[in-house]
Each structure stands twice: as structure tokens, then as C-alpha cells.
């Protein structure tokens, strides 16, 4: 009865796109950000004896004293080179996958020690990955992420969560 016969296409226009005062972030130079090195992280997770051919293992020989250290080194490697500046979604997905893999490989009792070994910036970065992991929950990820969240929160406090929310460039 009251069918609208006039065109309502104008309602679908996103006027914010045409606003000349629209705020656009500055484009920072996107460095070569490939995300954490998957091979490196994989090799460190698997707990087999040191191989001489593996140059990365050679560098970390002093650090890796027991099998437990493999996890720590993998953890640190996974948190290096975060794909913050790049707009490539594939790189970001890949990085998220790597970090999630490392986080799940930790035993519950080791989480606290791992978080304590991080510096402030890395705690913030860890929080960013944790919240990104919350966005797409898979079978067991939420429970593990929540344990990591509790420990990271104890170190980073509410400030680290606020920084996840206010970050302009996220992982």
C-alpha cells in the first residue's frame, strides 16, 4: 500500500567517504615486514637435539641449555618482526597462526615464566596477538588464550589492554 516508488539508492551512499575532512592516518614507510619466520619458529618448537647445520640453533646454543628453552626461544622468535605496518591481510593471518601455534605449545606452568621474560613492548605485542586470537576462536584456543591473558594482564595491567584498544596499527 505504501510502497516507496521513488529511488532510495541515495540511502546506500557512504557519505563519510566523501567528507573532505575525513581523518586518514599518515602512511608510514612499511618496512620489509614479513611477520615472524615460520621455519625458524617451527624448528625451535620441535624438541630434538641440536643440529650443526642449523645456523639459528648455533646462535642460540648458549641459551638453549635444556629442552624447555626451545619453547622460550620459539616464543621470542614468534614475537619478533610483527606485521604491524603492512596492510597485507595474508601476512597478518600467517603471523597470527604462528604465534597461536607457539602459545598452545606451552605448558600451563611455564606461561608465567615466559611472560616475565618479556619487556614492556613485547607484553603489549603479546596482548595484541591474544586479543586477535579471541576474535576467531577455534577448538581449544580460547581456553589457552585466557590463561595467557591472565598472566599477561598481571604484568601489563589495564594499560596494556587499553593499548590494544587504542592502537592504530595492529598485528
Amino acid at each position, binding site marked *: 500500500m505504501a510502497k516507496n516508488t521513488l529511488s532510495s539508492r541515495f540511502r546506500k551512499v557512504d557519505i563519510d567517504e566523501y567528507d573532505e*575532512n575525513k*581523518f586518514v592516518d599518515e602512511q608510514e614507510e612499511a618496512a620489509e615486514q614479513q611477520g615472524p619466520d615460520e621455519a625458524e619458529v617451527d624448528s625451535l618448537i620441535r624438541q630434538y637435539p641440536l643440529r650443526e647445520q642449523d645456523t639459528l640453533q648455533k646462535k642460540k646454543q648458549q641459551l638453549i641449555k635444556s629442552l624447555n628453552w626451545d619453547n622460550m626461544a620459539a616464543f621470542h622468535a614468534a614475537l619478533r618482526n610483527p606485521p604491524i605496518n603492512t596492510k597485507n591481510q595474508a601476512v597478518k593471518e600467517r603471523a597470527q597462526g604462528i604465534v597461536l601455534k607457539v602459545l598452545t605449545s606451552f605448558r600451563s606452568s611455564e606461561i608465567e615464566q615466559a611472560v616475565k621474560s618479556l619487556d*614492556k*613492548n613485547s607484553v*603489549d605485542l603479546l596482548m595484541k596477538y591474544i586479543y586477535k586470537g579471541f576474535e576467531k576462536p577455534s577448538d581449544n584456543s580460547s581456553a589457552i588464550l585466557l590463561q595467557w591473558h591472565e598472566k599477561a594482564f598481571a604484568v*601489563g*595491567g*589495564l*594499560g*596494556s589492554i*587499553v*593499548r590494544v584498544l*587504542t*592502537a*592504530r596499527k595492529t598485528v
Partner: protein
Amino acid sequence: MSYYNFLLEPISCHAWNKDRTQIAICPNNHEVHIYKKEGGDKWSKIHELKEHNGQVTGIDWAPESNRIVTCGTDRNAYVWTLKGNVWRPTLVILRINRAARCVKWSPKENKFAVGSGSRLISICYFEQENDWWVCKHIKKPIRSTVLSLDWHPNNVLLAAGSCDFKCRIFSAYIKEVEEKPSPTPWGSKMPFGELMFESSGTDGWVHSICFSGSGGRVAWVSHDSTVAVATGSKNTVISSLRSETLPLLGVTFITENSLVAAGHDCYPMLYVYDEGKGTITFGGKLDIPKQNAQRGMTARERFQNLDKKASSETEKATLESVHKNSISQISILEGDKSKCRKFCTTGMDGGMTIWDVKTLESSMKDLKII
């Protein structure tokens, strides 16, 4: 430390008069109320300034000339002068099309600056020939609302913190009212509107900004829970600290090296800046909590806690700080930014607290204010 609760509504902004016997506050509406200190802990309302049509967002009281400037969301600013026993307003046309957010008299009180949502700062000065307040705009390169302002002691440089995540220092030199300023660590050429410094690396809105007593340093707090200090020089270095607290809303220098900041965590905190190392460190929480008697928990309560909250701790759910809601503004009461003896905080709980630096120093063991 004394706490006085003015109202149940948040105090939007406040300003003190020269001898600190009167305080002008905005009780979260279109008016400004002036309270006078009676003996002891009593305050009585002596004036009500009603002229604004929108919420009053900024008040500043010029100590020497005894004028009050207010700005509000009705896009206007008024300069109030005391005639006899009545405050009379004079309208200032700011030529903005969004709300005004903050206002500050310059140190010499011959001009004031208004930050607004129109992405610009209005610098207003009095023109004698026309008997009228005139304003000039600083527009570039501000890209969002200006939330906070602070003047440099030389009456020319103005620091502005805004919602485009940057803190900037502009020159607000008006040749009609003053002479050319001498060079400062922030630069030597200062034509009107010149950008002397722009910060980078913050991810949140800059809520509050403050010059140090000498003007050589500027500190700001932003919504990503960081505190940052920059020291002016040829290559300005910015030091920042990521805190574990909720975002801070107000900051002020109390000595050249120490800052007091407060915000959504409802208590003021001390930060110490070390220029040599370029670091800011957390100095301590400045609230003296009351010693509450620890009530033992019954077994039933413990089990209920475990059931409902999955925790068997005996933490209470009440705030232990003096302010029961976020602190929105800090102002210096006694002393100045290089040596402050008392400062005052007002917040969204409608309360005002006066903090004494000496008492805080003596009551907190590790507190060092250098």
C-alpha cells in the same frame, strides 16, 4: 589532604582565584558557580554566572586582572569582569562552528586561547580602538578536536593536545599586544601560527598537556595510557612511559623533573623524568588509603565467592581512593610549576581534593620528589 564534595554531578572544570579563597566550577550544566571558602571546611556559593546556552567546558581565572573566561559547547566564550558585586559577561566571537573545549589565559593575561572541535585554536586579544575582543585562528595542521592547551611562560608559545593523537607547540605571537619574543629551546623564528614542534608515536587522544615551569619541557598524557615528556632543543627527544593504569586525564609539573597525573584510576600518581637518561619512571601512587579493618570471611561467603567469581580472595569491590570517580582536572594551588606545595583535583564524583606535597612526601616512604 582534604576532600570536599560539592555536588553529586561531575565537575566539568574548575578555576581558582588569585588568593585561592574562591573557586569557580561548572556543575555539569550551562552555568558557572563561584564558591567562597568560609572557615574550616565550609564552602558557600556566592555567585552564579548564567550566560552560556551549552555546557561550560572550560574556565580560567586570571589572577592579576581578576577576569574569568569561560567557553562552552554553544560555540561561544565569555570574559567576565567583576563590577561591584556582580560578574558581567562580554561575548567573544570565536568564529567556530563546533563546541569550544578548553580555554587558557596567557601568562600576561593580555590574550587567551580557546581549543575547539572545529579543529582550530582561537587566539583572542582585546582591541582597544573597537573595545572588543578579536580572535585569530591557528588551523594548520590540526586535524581533529583540540582537547587541551597550555601557555609557555614567554606568553607566545602555546602547546596544544588534540584528538589526532599529536601534541603540538605553536607560536601565538600577536604583534598588536606584544613585542617579538627572544629565542627559546623550541625555536627562534616565531611568526603567528608557526608550528614549532609536533609529537609522534602516540596512539591515543592527547587529554592534557603541560609546560614545565621554565618552559623548556612539555609533558602530555594520552588515551593509550602513556605519559610523555619532550625537552625542547635542536633535536627534540620524546621520552614516553607506557603505564599499567587506565588512561590519564590531567597532568601538571610540580617541579622541573616531577609530574603529577591523574585520570580514570581515581588517584593521582607521581612520575619522575630523568633528562640525562631520557626516561620517565613511575614514582608512586599519591593516595593515602584509609586503614580499613580487615573483616574475616565466613566459610559460606568464601564458597559463594568461589562459585560466583571463581576467586577465593577477600578483595572488596569498593574504591579505596579519595575520589570515587575519574579525576578530570588537576590545578596548582600553592606555588608554581617549578615548586608546587599544594595541588587540587576535581573529578566526576563532584568532589574536590586538595593535596599537600609535603604531607604526601612524609607519609609515603619511598616517595621522592626531585
